[in-house]
């Protein structure tokens, strides 16, 4: 059954440097890394010491407060280094990879017929639990909860992001197996949303409620879809899984191995070989783009709106499927504030003439185009925020730390990525994603 969801408000940024739909096998990295900061609010407890030998799927660390959630090695090799930052916070666990992978055998299992407990146990033991995220709060799901539903978005709207229809086209079988496994985790439904590109690939998947989603970014954000389909109320939990991680879960049941392979799109105006690369999670960026990226180019693991900046020779984020390279913008512009000048810089407001060229593709830099100011302009956030929530009022409630107001205004339904476009469009250059993240963290500590 398919239900159509049409998102009206939003903004699709048209940027130069889309990845060509061609798959390249990336060379095997010498080192791989799992970065604990990728898993928000997880406090890692190391299981292994530096120098230990690991198989792909061997546990490296677990979450201190939800011990069942284990994080495993994506490759086989030697645990080379545990990198720490201030206060001994672990930032990277680096594994020196063997020439070929040997896998820890978790045993095959028919997910469709197996008992729920066995399915859950296998997902957690293999480290696939890390793929399952919880809403509200956007944190790794606690296996002790029972979610009211699981949501998977195979809709791509983020600028230059990997096209999920293309990414999944050869992985339908393991995707289906993954769905069978996820079915055992919830008494509710599994909602799968697709766009024009992923619909032909996933239209025959069983055990899901299919939703066709169209509209501008952030229509592809799973949070926006949840809001349309079955919003999160206070006290409820739903889980979400990235569409490109479902095949990894399925593969676990088909082969018994944890093989976290995925396609990563290399994109952005400064990228040379803009293609899709087949990599193992935690791969080194150098294998995709080399390690000679100059300082005036920013390497972003993820898309330009929500990704993390990484440096040369660094590792891809656990959840990211895009590597974007755009020019740094640390240059001055004389009288840059004059309206109707510098029309080559996109603006959603109409104070630039860029709106006269709706087809033009832009080459944005990382320049802030102004300085942070008090919140003055109203109405601009609502234009790119499709949920039935007042974004500016919610941001203000988060800034004030007013828990009751945050609850009333819908904090449980949003995560930082939903505010990425607000980061982009707002005149006052307010860091909306950061404010929402801090607000969610406050909710976690105060409400739980």
């Amino acid at each position, binding site marked *: 059954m398919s239900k159509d969801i049409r998102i009206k408000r939003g903004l699709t940024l048209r940027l130069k440097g889309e990845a060509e739909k061609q798959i390249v096998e990336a060379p095997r990295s010498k080192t791989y890394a799992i970065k604990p900061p990728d898993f928000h609010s997880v406090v890692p407890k190391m299981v292994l010491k530096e120098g230990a030998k690991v198989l792909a799927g061997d546990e490296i660390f677990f979450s201190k407060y939800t011990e069942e959630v284990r994080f495993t090695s994506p490759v086989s090799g030697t645990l080379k280094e545990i990198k720490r930052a201030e206060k001994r916070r672990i930032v990277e666990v680096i594994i020196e990879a063997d020439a070929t992978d040997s896998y820890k055998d978790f045993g095959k299992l028919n997910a469709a017929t197996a008992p729920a407990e066995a399915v859950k146990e296998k997902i957690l033991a293999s480290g696939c639990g890390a793929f399952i995220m919880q809403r509200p709060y956007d944190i790794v799901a606690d296996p002790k909860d029972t979610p009211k539903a699981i949501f998977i978005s195979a809709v791509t709207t983020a600028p230059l992001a990997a096209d999920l229809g293309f990414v999944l086209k050869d992985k339908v079988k393991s995707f289906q197996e993954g769905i069978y496994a996820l079915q055992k985790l919830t008494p509710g439904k599994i909602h799968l949303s697709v766009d024009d590109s992923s619909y032909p690939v996933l239209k025959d998947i069983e055990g899901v409620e299919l939703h066709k989603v169209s509209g501008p970014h952030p229509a592809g954000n799973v949070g926006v879809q949840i809001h349309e389909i079955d919003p999160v109320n206070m006290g409820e939990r739903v889980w979400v899984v990235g569409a490109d991680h479902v095949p990894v879960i399925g593969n676990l049941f088909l082969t018994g191995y944890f093989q976290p392979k995925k396609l990563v799109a290399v994109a952005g105006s400064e990228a040379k070989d803009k293609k899709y690369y087949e990599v193992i999670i935690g791969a080194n960026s150098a294998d995709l783009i080399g390690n000679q990226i100059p300082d005036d180019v920013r390497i972003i693991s993820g898309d330009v709106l929500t990704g993390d900046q990484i440096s040369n020779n660094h590792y891809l984020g656990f959840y990211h499927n895009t590597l974007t390279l*755009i020019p740094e913008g640390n240059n001055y512009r004389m009288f840059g504030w004059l309206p109707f000048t510098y029309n080559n810089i996109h603006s959603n407001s109409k104070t630039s003439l860029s709106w006269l060229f709706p087809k033009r593709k832009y080459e944005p830099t990382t320049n802030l185009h102004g300085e942070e100011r008090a919140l003055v302009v109203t109405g601009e956030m609502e234009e790119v925020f499709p949920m039935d929530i007042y974004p500016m009022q919610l941001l203000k409630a988060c800034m004030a730390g007013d828990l009751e107001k945050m609850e009333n205004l819908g904090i449980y339904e949003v995560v930082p990525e939903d505010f*990425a476009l607000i980061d982009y469009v707002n005149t006052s250059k307010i860091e909306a994603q950061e404010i929402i993240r801090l607000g969610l963290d406050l909710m976690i500590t105060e409400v739980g």
Partner: protein
Amino acid sequence: MEWIRQRLDKFKEPFGKGKKLEKYAPAINALDTFLFTPNHTTKTGAHIRDGVDLKRTMITVVLALIPALIFGMWNGGYQYLHQLPEYADGVPFMDAFLEGAIKIVPMIVVSYAIGLGIEFAFAIFRGHEVNEGYLVTGLLIPMVMPIDIPLWMVGVSVVFSVIIGKEAFGGTGMNILNPALTARAFAFFAYPTYMSGNTVWVHNAASVDAISGETILGKLASGTEVPYSTMDMFSGLIPGSISETSTICILAGALLLILTKVGSWRIIVSGFAGAAVMALIFNSLPSLGVEGNDLTNFPWYNHLVIGGLAFGVVFMATDPVSAAQTMKGKWIYGFLIGFFAIMIRIFNPAYPEGIMLAILLMNVFAPVIDHYVIQSNVKKRKKRLATVKEVKTA
């Protein structure tokens, strides 16, 4: 450009972090960012940002004010000169313009100098950057004053509006009342003889007996005949505060504000609609058997183009900080401004400028309007939660 940049960087050195003039940095940064959009890059959040910033937004409003300002300067001179016998055959454009400009430019200078001075001082004192809001406020204040108001009164009004109207509430973005109207209201109540009456609206009308300086609203209130056509009122060839008279120039500004989405079209449209509705109600009194007076019987379309209504609705009601912030709230807010402006104008001819009081009144009530709009969203969410709970317990 490169050369200027280098000189500027050199000049800025002693204001850097940890240097001895550090606390004055906001002042120097304000000048620097006026010349150059800074080289700041994104640190957290989205890596790319929109080309718009607050400076650009504010300058757009200033641009939108220019037609009304130029017309105001010309009209300021014209209203005086065309009553003089020497100009019986017509007033040359430049004569009128210069006559007005010589009065108005000093007012603008005073307004900017004092207002920006206070803003800079507060920025240094509080250690934040100078906000651009005053670029608009500083121009609006002289534009809504009568032409002959002494400069020191402009200055005092500016001081009152910036310190009490804005900074006392926490600065740009926090004020409840529109600062420019706060200045005008201050002058209106502090120096009523300079701000109302029959003689202040035309240059020199107070000192030269032969010059008449009454506004249309004043004439209507006193029952004298109005010698202007609707076209005069629309184009602005009438006495009044400096820039309020020309509806056509104001609409040109409104067009820019709406096209650039800087001003809320919802407020502008609903503001005029509210005024039209109220005026129509009064116009229809005779058909209901109530006689009414000159003010109530003044045609509704004329009500829309005289007085400060158009200027207030377009440039002051749309101030996003003091207006309602929700979409629905903006409709209600704008409508009530127009509605009350005409009501005050007609019921209380002593305060012919209904629009000023109507906007200030609605400024105060804007948060209340927003509260109820947002509350309906909150209620929806709570209702949803309640139904979920019911299903679970059932």
